[in-house]
């Protein structure tokens, strides 16, 4: 019996014998990996960040469509060149420990985060701030040392969420074991693989509709699915596409899919021959059928890429297309002097999806005589061989398959770390080692203003130029898939693969 037929039979089993109703109004969410920490300013993975949104809130945040919304802030103003931001704060907010939320709390938090001595991993979100001024109890002014148009989007990132200053003073470095925020839920316990939070009855938006939220790490996807079927869990974010068919016919479960902001691509090391030649890079783009990529790697739950950033990010434009066209690809290869193709290798993190993607690319590129050697890398090895390389000349990477999601929801963090000429490893992620003066100018132009129209113009230029320059093989934007029991409402996945649970409710 294969795994699939086993799972199908289990789905049929549930249809015959529905699990009993959930008694307590506790929402259990089953996720794959363990959380890595509870200090939002010092965790790097989306799962931990998004789970912490239950406890903590930022000045700004996102709604379920990743639109920027004010949370602890009421409004903001900035000067024309994006070097000063004045933020008005909400008056009616208290932390879970009873401390008032006010301008001093914001200053304490931002000063803590931007202080290099604290070694907090999300420091880059606010490192451009040179001074945080308390104007009055509920107004702060941020003074930047250089223009940064994406400041507000950075403050909406979970890494910039606000921690109770009293708790910071009390617990110091141990704050990640005693999280105290302003969110809809109060921290209860974090055990080996489970985070438990309970309702905050004094929540400023009004109390949540479930008593407790339990986030449990269950590594095996078949087991997560079984938990949904038995009612042990009500929400499974990042559900594997290959299991959808199994639960689609179950009336007690629903599956929701929506576009993400995770774009997949193959970075081509522009410093290495033959990828220094734009014609070769474009030829590779024409040689890959993006629709087939979506079908094979993501079971069709994915859209072909049409720019260097996904549609869900602000300032996205359709930058053009590289329709699957083998004749054109071969012609470009011939013009570049590679009609007989070449051999190269592709690296990616070692997981099922990446392996599938690399095998697909191997087959596609063989059509234009490019012989691809597949090299999966364990995460620590990838960190060493790709992201810790000190100088571009030392880089061994030729092709790298990966995905990127901009957790600020803004074009800046979707483009600047990946394609600005100076942002090569180890500082950032320009693993294509792509340098284009015009693209650099557009990226820098966009962060030197807070005016949305000017930023839009710059980002349009950057997207069109970078698309034409083809530093990557542009592939696709994967869909989000979440499965839940039908009696739960108000749970959503965010386009960056996080989730929103605050409005969760049971319909019975």
């Amino acid at each position, binding site marked *: 019996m294969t795994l699939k037929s086993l799972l199908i039979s289990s789905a049929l089993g549930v249809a015959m014998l529905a699990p009993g109703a959930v008694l307590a109004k506790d929402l259990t969410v089953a996720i794959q990996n363990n959380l890595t920490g509870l200090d939002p300013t010092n965790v790097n993975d989306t799962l931990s960040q998004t789970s912490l949104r239950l406890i903590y809130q930022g000045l700004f945040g996102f709604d379920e469509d990743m639109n920027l919304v004010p949370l602890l802030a009421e409004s903001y103003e900035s000067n024309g060149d994006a070097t000063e931001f004045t933020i008005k704060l909400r008056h009616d907010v208290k932390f879970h420990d009873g401390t008032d939320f006010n301008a001093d709390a914001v200053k304490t938090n931002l000063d803590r985060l931007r202080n290099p001595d604290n070694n907090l991993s999300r420091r*880059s979100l606010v490192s451009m701030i040179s001074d945080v001024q308390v104007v009055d109890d509920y107004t702060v002014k941020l003074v930047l040392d250089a223009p940064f148009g994406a400041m507000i989007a950075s403050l909406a990132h979970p890494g910039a969420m606000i921690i109770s200053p009293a708790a910071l003073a009390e617990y110091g470095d141990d704050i*990640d074991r005693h999280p105290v925020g302003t969110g809809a839920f109060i921290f209860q316990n974090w055990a080996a693989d489970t985070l438990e939070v309970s309702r905050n009855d004094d929540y400023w938006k009004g109390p949540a509709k479930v008593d407790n939220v339990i986030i449990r790490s269950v590594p095996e996807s078949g087991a997560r699915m079984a938990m949904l079927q038995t009612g042990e869990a009500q929400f499974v974010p990042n559900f594997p596409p290959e299991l959808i068919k199994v639960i689609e016919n179950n009336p007690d479960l629903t599956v929701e899919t929506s576009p993400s902001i995770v774009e997949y691509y193959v970075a081509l090391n522009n410093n290495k021959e033959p990828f220094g030649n734009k014609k070769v890079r474009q030829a590779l783009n024409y040689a890959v059928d993006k629709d087939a990529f979506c079908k094979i790697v993501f079971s069709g739950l994915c859209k072909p890429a049409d720019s260097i950033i996904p549609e869900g990010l602000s300032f996205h434009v359709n930058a053009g297309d590289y329709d699957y066209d083998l004749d054109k690809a071969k012609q470009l290869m011939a013009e570049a002097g590679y009609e007989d193709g070449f051999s190269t290798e592709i690296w990616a993190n070692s997981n099922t999806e990446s392996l599938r993607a690399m095998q697909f690319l191997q087959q596609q590129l063989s059509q234009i005589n490019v012989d691809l050697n597949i090299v999966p890398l364990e995460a620590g090895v990838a960190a*060493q061989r790709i992201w810790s390389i000190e100088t571009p000349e030392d880089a061994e990477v030729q092709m790298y398959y990966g995905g990127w999601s901009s957790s600020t929801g803004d074009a800046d963090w979707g483009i600047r770390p990946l394609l600005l000429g100076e942002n090569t490893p180890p500082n950032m992620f320009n693993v294509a080692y792509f340098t284009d003066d015009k693209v650099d100018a557009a990226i820098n132009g966009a962060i030197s203003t807070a005016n949305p129209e000017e930023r839009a113009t710059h980002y349009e230029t950057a997207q069109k130029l970078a698309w034409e320059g083809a530093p990557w093989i542009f592939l696709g934007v994967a869909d989000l898939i979440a499965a839940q029991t039908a009696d739960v409402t108000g749970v959503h996945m965010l386009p960056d693969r996080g989730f929103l649970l605050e409005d969760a409710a049971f319909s019975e």
Partner: protein
Amino acid sequence: MLSYLIKRLLGTIPVILMVTLAVFAFVHMLPGDPARLVAGPEATASDVAAVRAALGLDQSLPHQFLTYITHTVQGDFGVSLKTRRPVVEEIGMRLMPTVWLTVIAMIWSVALGLLIGVVSAVKRGKWPDYGGMILAVSGISFPPFWLGLLLINLFSVRLGWLPTGGYGTWQHFLMPSFTLGLGVAAVMARFTRSAFIEIAREDYVRTARAKGVPERSVIWHHSLRNALIPIITMVGLQFGFLLGGSIVIESVFAWPGVGRLLVDSVSYRDYPVIQALVLMFSLQFIFINLLVDILYVLVNPEIRYK
């Protein structure tokens, strides 16, 4: 006996030291920079350097080893690089789930394995023997991963009798301990059977039968007692392995044990946790070996240590 014990205990010290050194060297030879992983994806090169210094990873390896040894001797295993919780706490909350699961799995599987093994040996070449050995071979051959999902599907999803996974009530133990113990039971059954068949050819067994000792006593008293020595060795080995936490079982049943912790820690290059875990596993093995030696004496008073 006492002096033997003391000698054995003292003898473990160089073993532990060697293990400690080997683990330290192995962990630090793994490719991948923990400072990079701790500092986070958006950290600049200087941030990473600062983190490396803060973690003491910029020191020379001998220096780091010395620090590690001095701290370990004082019972200080440091703080997890990933969660920043003390390593002792990190392991502490996962150790008992693994220990209990192992103990329960061992109890039923050794008992059942012994029984099947003895019956198969006594009824050699008859249907109980074939039946028992078919069971044993199946037990060894079932992939635990597949068996685990099969059980979840049957008992949790279809019948709704047992929770799919997690650690808590006695119901939580049933499926994981069955899945974990099945392979052990199978090995024990085969091992007991062959040990028993060997013994059955011994003169003292024939003598016992000849002088009219009842068959039941021949089997359970004369034969089993002598077959126990290799069986105990095998139990000790299996127990030691299982205490390391079964990664597959712990993943399928979402069991918060040390096996999963080790895998997570290796992928994060969480040096302090990896080092402490491997040290703990070696100590467990040394302790179990000692226990096995003591059991030898209890089982067979003729064994005398000098």
